[in-house]
């Protein structure tokens, strides 16, 4: 196996609040090989988005990097001087955000916002950059890109805006694309188009994807490997196929059981979807022992007292549970 | 929880001003109006006259202390009138909508188009100087902010479940407005009233300074400054102390309003500006 493109080791992200420091994300490790797609799944508030921001080096107070290493092609990202880190951002690691309306500057044309990438990273002047922005829009299949470059974000539909975001992110053919819930804010019919487009373009450019979503179904379709996060930790990591067939962690089971299946009612009759009772604990109030124990049906005394250590699974998988299997 | 410095400092400043006003007859050392003695005219600050004396030999300290009564009363009462008018109009306009809303909104826009001090000045010109005229002129001219705020808040609350429920239960409109809606929008309204009271004190001072507000010899801080202007060369202390009194009272109210906003209306930030 070749050296991974991105390697995250024992990442800790601290949240400081009222003079105290909390571990918003702890002991998170994963790696992505060139051209690979890794899915990162979890409910909102589990720490997946801030993990992405940490990889981008974009954590802002009250969040900060509390420990661990993030390396890109073997080089530690956070030891870079700020100017070097900036050159990495956008050029080698790019990011797409959840809400394409607010993620674009409302007062600037989409053409200019794409062109900025070429000005920043290739030293192009504005007119060259604008020409290349037209090309970039054409690549993301926006109709009549020559006219669209002059549009402002509010003149485009949600799907079109997300295409613009993809165009920005992939403008400099980055090695890694972080997609943070890229389809959540979109209509269901548009979601599939955006995901297909993203995959297609990344495959063509050889770009690896870190796909962040709360939608296990979507992630399982897109990715070869899936990591499930809960309350700031990775609780299970497996190949996508295995995770559906043999989920090891009770939380993963819960996520799978809560997925509606098309046609299930015809086959199995009317059934309730399973929800996971309770809510994700706040960062400032993580339970002791296993963090999932208050919501877990299998929890026993040991779960409340002892923090489960990761157990290796075949093919580089892992699970973090006292009663896995 | 951060230390709410502006709330406490503002509260302390304003409370001091109010206490001084309430205790004026006790803590004043001279009569503010009739203790004139030309032998003592324009004395600089001393132990006997800590803030000095004016052209008629009256004690500035006692006049500033008594001035607190008039200035604060006018400021607070005028703001109460503004709040009552504004909230009543805004609440009913937002709740009932229709032609009434159009009328109130039109009126609000008209009020916003005329600078309020100019409007107050016009009313003072007609009514003539005096305490009651001041209350009318200031109380009728700056209600548009609380009206707009109340209306906007009611519009956003109107569709919420508990208001609908109250309506289905057959509560009267007035009962819904004053027992269901008003308590829920009170926070931002208190903030805007606190800041508005500071504005009213400043407006009173300005009108009295022009000679259209409180007439001499009765001391309001504005009218004292009006007298003092003539003697700025010979007796600058006449100008310094009443001005400081206005400044401290208004600063207290502004800080208090900022502090209250952090607590009562955290999402608004600078809406009032």
């Amino acid at each position: 196996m070749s050296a991974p493109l991105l390697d995250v080791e024992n990442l800790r992200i601290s949240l400081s609040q009222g003079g105290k420091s909390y571990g918003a994300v702890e002991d998170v490790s994963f790696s992505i090989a060139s051209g690979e797609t890794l899915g990162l799944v979890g409910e909102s508030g589990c720490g997946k988005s801030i993990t992405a921001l940490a990889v981008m080096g974009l954590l802002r107070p009250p969040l900060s990097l509390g420990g661990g290493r993030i390396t890109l092609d073997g080089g530690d990202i956070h030891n870079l001087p700020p100017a070097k880190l900036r050159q990495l951002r956008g050029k080698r690691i790019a990011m797409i955000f959840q809400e394409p309306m607010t993620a674009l500057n409302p007062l600037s044309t989409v053409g200019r916002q794409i062109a900025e990438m070429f000005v920043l990273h290739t030293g192009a002047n504005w007119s060259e950059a604008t020409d290349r922005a037209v090309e970039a829009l054409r690549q993301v299949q926006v109709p009549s890109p020559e006219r669209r470059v002059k549009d402002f974000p509010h003149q485009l539909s949600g799907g079109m805006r997300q295409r613009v975001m993809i165009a920005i992110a992939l403008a400099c053919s980055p090695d890694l694309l972080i997609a943070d819930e890229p389809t959540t804010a979109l209509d269901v019919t548009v979601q599939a188009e955006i995901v297909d487009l993203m995959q297609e373009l990344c495959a063509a450019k050889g770009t690896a994807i870190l796909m962040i979503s709360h939608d296990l179904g979507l992630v399982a379709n897109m990715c070869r490997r899936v990591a499930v996060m809960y309350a700031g930790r990775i609780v299970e990591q497996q190949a996508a196929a295995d995770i559906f067939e043999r989920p090891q962690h009770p939380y993963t089971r819960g996520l799978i059981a809560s997925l509606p299946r098309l046609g299930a009612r015809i086959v199995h009759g009317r059934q309730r979807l399973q929800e996971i009772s309770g809510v994700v604990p706040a960062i400032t109030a993580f339970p002791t022992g296993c963090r999932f124990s208050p919501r877990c049906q299998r929890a026993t005394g040991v779960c409340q007292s002892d923090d489960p250590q990761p157990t290796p699974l075949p093919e580089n998988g892992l699970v973090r549970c006292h009663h896995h299997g | 929880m951060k230390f709410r410095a502006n709330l406490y400092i503002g509260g302390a400043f304003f409370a001091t001003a109010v206490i001084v006003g309430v205790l004026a007859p006790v803590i004043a050392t001279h009569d503010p109006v009739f203790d004139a003695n030309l032998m003592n005219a324009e004395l600089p600050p001393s132990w006997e006259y800590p803030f000095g004396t004016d052209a008629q030999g009256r004690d500035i300290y006692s006049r500033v202390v008594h001035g607190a009564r008039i200035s604060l009363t006018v400021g607070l009462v005028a703001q109460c009138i503004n709040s009552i008018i504004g909230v009543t109009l805004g609440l009913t306009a937002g709740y009932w909508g229709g032609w009434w809303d159009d009328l109130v909104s039109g009126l609000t826009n008209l009020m916003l188009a005329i600078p309020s001090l100019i409007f107050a000045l016009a009313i003072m010109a007609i009514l003539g100087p005096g305490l009651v005229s001041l209350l009318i002129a200031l109380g009728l001219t700056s209600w548009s902010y609380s009206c707009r705020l109340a209306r906007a808040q009611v519009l956003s609350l109107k569709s919420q479940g508990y208001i609908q429920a109250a309506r289905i239960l057959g509560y009267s409109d007035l009962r819904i407005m004053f027992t269901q809606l008003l308590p829920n929008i009170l926070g931002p309204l208190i903030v805007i009233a606190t800041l508005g009271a500071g504005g009213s004190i400043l407006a009173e001072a300005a009108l009295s300074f022009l000679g259209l507000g409180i007439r001499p010899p009765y001391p309001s801080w504005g009218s004292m400054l009006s007298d003092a202007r003539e003697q700025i060369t010979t007796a600058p202390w006449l100008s310094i102390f009443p001005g400081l009194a206005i400044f401290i009272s208004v600063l207290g109210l502004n800080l208090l309003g900022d502090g209250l906003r952090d607590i009562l209306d955290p999402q608004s930030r600078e809406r009032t500006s």
Partner: protein
Amino acid sequence: MLAVLLRRLLNIIPTVGAVILVIFVLFSVIPGSFTSTGAEDGRMLDPQVMERMRKEMGLDDPLLERFGRYVGHTLVGDLGKSFRTREPVTKLIADRLWPSLKLAIAAMCFAILVGVPLGFIAALKPGSVVDSVSMIGAVSGLSLPQFWLGLMLMYLFGLLLGWLPSFGYGDGGPRYLILPALALGFNPMALLARTTRAAVLDVLNADFVRTARSKGMAETRVVTWHVMRNALVLVITTIGLQFGSLMGAAVVVEKLFSWPGLGSLLVDSVFQRDIPAVQGCILVIVLFFLVINTLVDLAYAVIDPRIRYA
């Protein structure tokens, strides 16, 4: 753009109409207007003179007729004759307009040029010494009575140090303008500093700023390319609204500095019960405010495409 302008101008018409009505009602309908009382010092006018004036002004005609006449004259720019000088009010106002404009513009320029950068710097370093000092300064500035500040400036720079003339219009040169403009501009400056700071902090937290950072943009570029224009939209609203209170305050500051502007004309006319002049001044001040607000809306449309294409 033209559509925005036309729409705004159309919106002004009912407001102007309502203002004319209010002014007419205030000064012509409410009893106790000038004819029934004496002059400021208690001197009563000769009844015969008063009778002649009533006739001349048509004050005994039916109300509606008077209102119609007032509206008609106002619309063609005839604001009547001053009771005091017997000159047309339009001429009185025209003489005072330029000094007033000069003072208002100077004060607003000071407010914008100092307040906006101050708010910007404060927002870029929240919690820093610059931030704390400028925000304490701002809330203090908002609490200062302008005329008192003017009085203190007059005393300090005019009388004590003798650097600048302490009052009057003089030759209309900038030396005479400085002190009144400072006194008038300090309050809006303080407010602009606060608003700018809040606006910039707001924009700095926006998603698109995060996007800009994720593009690998240096913080200075993030600010100049993406934060400034967005914050400006919020700041411009405040500038427009501030002109209203600025014109109110100008009355007091002009009077304090004996500045020959509309404000002091208004106050003098009030004391002399020169009703046509009072009416004219108020109308012109309101019109000026409305024009400013229209310009602000246009500035909006220039900056914000969402309004331009609405």
